[in-house]
């Protein structure tokens, strides 16, 4: 008897759709990181100066830091429910490449948390005095950066699943790894604002993204196996 196996792509699509449906039913939870993002960026003018020309100097960096923190927020619970109710165990046993299923889950997570941040960023940036000419670069850099961050965060979330006080630990693990993203992303915005070509940092961001995309699933599946097997 030959076992019939769902094609991997179809299985990954099912995982993706399931997460989207679940999120749609609890959309208020999905909105929380976005609200956090706006609140954090509001704090900077209050803490420093309401002068737009002064805020412009740090605007790109503030948007980037806020985006990093906001996308970390939702990561902690990424795999928790699935590990607790045994879904991940079934994935491990399913014979599908675990990395792809986890990547589909991370992709759904990115669509729900990363993409809204990217779309919101011009509005938030304008509040910090960023000119319309940097919108494109800001969004593109965040698009690549949040993608990488979702994968890095996926590794961190897979490692800290079932750990006490996981959310603090997760930030401690993921933030140092995300520093290059912060450097390249905010530099790209600053260079565009100074009239330089931001191609260099954007290409580096893209390179890091593709590296994370190719190696990330391996690390994620190794980490999930450790969490499930014991």
């Amino acid at each position: 008897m030959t076992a019939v196996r769902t094609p991997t792509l179809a299985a990954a699509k099912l995982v993706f759709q399931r997460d989207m449906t679940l999120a749609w039913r609890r959309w208020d939870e999905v909105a929380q990181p976005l609200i956090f993002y706006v609140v954090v960026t509001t704090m900077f003018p209050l803490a420093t100066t309401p002068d737009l020309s002064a805020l412009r100097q740090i605007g790109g960096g503030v948007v980037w830091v806020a985006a990093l923190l906001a996308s970390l927020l939702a990561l902690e619970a990424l795999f928790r429910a699935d590990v607790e109710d045994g879904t991940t165990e079934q994935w491990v046993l399913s014979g599908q490449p675990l990395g792809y299923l986890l990547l589909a889950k991370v992709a759904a997570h990115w669509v729900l948390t990363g993409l809204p941040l990217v779309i919101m960023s011009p509005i938030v940036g304008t509040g910090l005095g960023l000119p319309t000419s940097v919108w494109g670069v800001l969004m593109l850099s965040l698009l690549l950066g949040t993608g990488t961050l979702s994968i890095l965060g996926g590794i961190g979330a897979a490692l800290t699943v079932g750990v006490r006080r996981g959310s603090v630990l997760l930030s401690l693990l993921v933030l140092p790894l995300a520093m290059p993203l912060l450097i390249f992303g905010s530099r790209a915005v600053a260079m565009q604002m100074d009239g330089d070509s931001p191609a260099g940092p954007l290409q580096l961001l893209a390179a890091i993204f593709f590296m994370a995309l190719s190696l990330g699933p391996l690390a994620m599946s190794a980490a999930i196996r450790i969490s499930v097997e014991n």
Partner: protein
Amino acid sequence: MSWTWFHKLASPPHAYRILGSLAPWFGWASLALILLATWWGLVKAPADYQQGDGFRILYVHAPSAWMSMFAYVVMAIAAGVGLIWRIKLAHAAAAACAPIGASFTFLALATGSIWGKPMWGTWWVWDARLTSELLLLFLYLGYMALRASFDDPQRADRASAVLALVGVINVPIIHYSVDWWTTLHQPASVTKFDKPSIQLAMLIPLFIMIAGFQLYFGWAVSRRLRGEILRRERNANWLREAS
């Protein structure tokens, strides 16, 4: 080729015994080299024409910075070996490396800061190497925090091993991104000391000191690893028979 020696080495009783006999060699040799290099560096080596005697902190700073990265790589290799061949002893070795590496990183940061005060006029500059050293310290702290947060030692071993491998891939990226970041930001006055052509007379004690630090690392890892073995094997028969 026979791998018996390898498997033998990976068995706790053998490793415990071998490490016990290696440790004094490492210890005394490192003490001798460090004392020699200290005398050579502080007394015999000529003073720097620009920094005077202030540069002599280099003999602690540079070897600790080197060891901080060396220890991380050793830790990641041990973690990888443990993960791939499922050797518990390799995981124990990785666990033994982490606090030592973190201490070296802290020492490099502290001496860099002390050196920076008279040379740069400030305790801290966002210099490329200082910043990537700081991020390395964060990586060490994250690794140790993850290891400490599991109750089950096997799970702690394997989860932190994955983190060590992810980290070691990221270390060069972090290093180059920080490098690139500071070359755009930093005033040239700070980089003046960056690439001095060091005299041979100053370089020899530096190499001796690095060798001494390496041996010290060997001694410290042997001692810590023996401790790890004792802790992990506390219920094993061979230990009861040995004591």
